[in-house]
């Protein structure tokens, strides 16, 4: 199979590089301009990057498997994030702290994530070709159900012991919950001080394990089935692969990984914004992956880490750069959201353009081949 598509076969390598890596190149330029403008020290930047790398990489790794399955970017990962948050709420209510608390949150939230992933898989199977926008809407829908359960169900239908996390009316969880009991327990489990920067080795090892799992998973039968489904549904079906079940499994795995990613994220932050913590999980994770050079059809582990570094460097420097440039730090906040959505829109538009050009080139080739057959016959 040719590595380069029809579009890029005729291009020179420089053009090929520019088109394929347009988004990371653009973000790199923005970051290079913004870093000196922000006036932040390298030590501060590196410290922030290390924290964000350990905090956010797991969530972005959760996006890889649906891409391999040909389902595009999984905008439904907030479902996994919500499952993780429910686990965290329960362990906080019961007063379970430390690593046992973290593991118990994982244990409680896993069946919820499996259920939500299964549900998401069924819905996305009915929206073949439109998985990304369906996933986006699914996240909004599930957000409503989550808020119903957490705001009205907990403390009334679902008994809660700890009144400090309940609203004053006696039911419903507070807007913000302190997670002091599990704050940075994984980060501090094994931490090394390197030049004044605390590196959370345990968290990074966990992320490395997930990377190894993804590499190993690709080589298993299920991983190969997922790849075949991603390349062509009909050919996979003719090979005896149950396409629908494979797609459901890929979304379920992604949802479970997102659930664990959100738990790791929350233990680093140390507090839970109950009703809006999961809002931008999907958008920021997808944007970061696209910034790392991934596309709707192809994403690798290196895209995840390049994306986290570039995207979060931009996150860190843009408020200060915005303040230096235009006198308003708040501009940086809007700039982040603008870049996130902009990157996604740009990548999707670029992908659609490439597909259209490739189709056109294929059509021209077929026409040329038919003409040459007619001429030869004459």
């Amino acid at each position, binding site marked *: 199979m040719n590595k380069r598509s029809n579009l890029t076969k005729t291009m020179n390598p420089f053009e090929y590089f520019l088109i394929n890596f347009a988004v990371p190149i653009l973000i790199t330029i923005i970051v290079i301009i913004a870093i000196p403008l922000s006036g932040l020290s390298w030590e501060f930047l590196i410290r922030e990057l290390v924290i964000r790398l350990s905090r956010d990489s797991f969530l972005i790794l959760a996006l890889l498997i649906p891409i391999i399955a040909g389902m595009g970017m999984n905008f439904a990962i907030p479902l996994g994030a919500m499952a993780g948050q429910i686990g965290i709420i329960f362990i906080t209510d*019961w007063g379970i*702290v430390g690593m046992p608390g973290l593991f118990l949150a994982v*244990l409680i939230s896993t069946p919820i994530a499996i259920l939500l992933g299964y549900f998401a898989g069924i819905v996305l199977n009915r929206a073949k070709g439109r998985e990304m926008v369906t996933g986006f809407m699914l996240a909004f829908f599930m957000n409503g159900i989550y808020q119903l359960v957490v705001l009205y169900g907990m403390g009334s239908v679902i008994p809660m012991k700890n009144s400090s996390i309940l609203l004053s009316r006696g039911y419903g969880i507070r807007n913000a919950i302190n997670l002091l009991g599990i704050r940075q327990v994984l980060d501090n489990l094994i931490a090394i001080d390197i030049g004044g920067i605390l590196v959370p080795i345990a968290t990074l090892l966990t992320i490395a394990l997930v990377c190894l799992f993804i590499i190993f998973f690709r080589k298993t039968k299920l991983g190969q089935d997922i790849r075949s489904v991603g390349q062509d549904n009909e050919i996979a079906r003719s090979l005896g692969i149950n396409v629908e079940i494979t797609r459901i499994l890929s979304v379920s795995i992604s949802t479970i990984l997102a659930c664990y990613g959100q738990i790791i994220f929350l233990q680093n932050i140390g507090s839970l914004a109950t009703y809006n913590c999961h809002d931008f999980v999907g958008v920021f994770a997808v944007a970061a992956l696209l910034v790392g050079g991934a596309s709707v059809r192809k994403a690798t582990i290196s895209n995840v880490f390049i994306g986290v570094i570039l995207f979060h460097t931009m996150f860190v420097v843009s408020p200060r750069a915005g303040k230096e440039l235009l006198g308003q730090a708040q501009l940086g906040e809007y700039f982040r959201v603008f870049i996130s959505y902009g990157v996604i829109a740009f990548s999707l538009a670029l992908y659609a353009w490439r597909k259209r050009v490739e189709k056109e080139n294929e059509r021209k080739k077929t026409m040329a081949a038919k003409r040459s057959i007619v001429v030869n016959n004459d």
Partner: protein
Amino acid sequence: MKRTLIRISIIIILIFLGIFLYTIGKEHKVLIDNIDVTVNDTYYISDTNYNVWVNNQEIGLLEKGKRKVAMVVGKNHKIIVQEIKNNELIGEKYEKMFNLKSNENATINLPAMINSADIWIKKQADI
């Protein structure tokens, strides 16, 4: 049949794992009182200050008539108490072990504990 049995076993193991994590991770509130108390018609007086450690973590100085709170995690715990005078630790160390069930908090009375009273710790169910 074999597959079903394996799945049921995994679920049972996970349930036990959950119970184990709950027990070892549960946080309890231990109130430590240095106040006068009557136990079984015997009156114990709080007449000095003590330094307190719980599970080898220093809780600090507990003056007579005062109370301090220690948060402990898990089932089995140790409390060590030593008299403190003019910022100096004097006298012998008193050590006691106690355990708490998952739904229990405790109140320890230092004069009763030091004098080896029958009831030096009161356990209350978590409401």
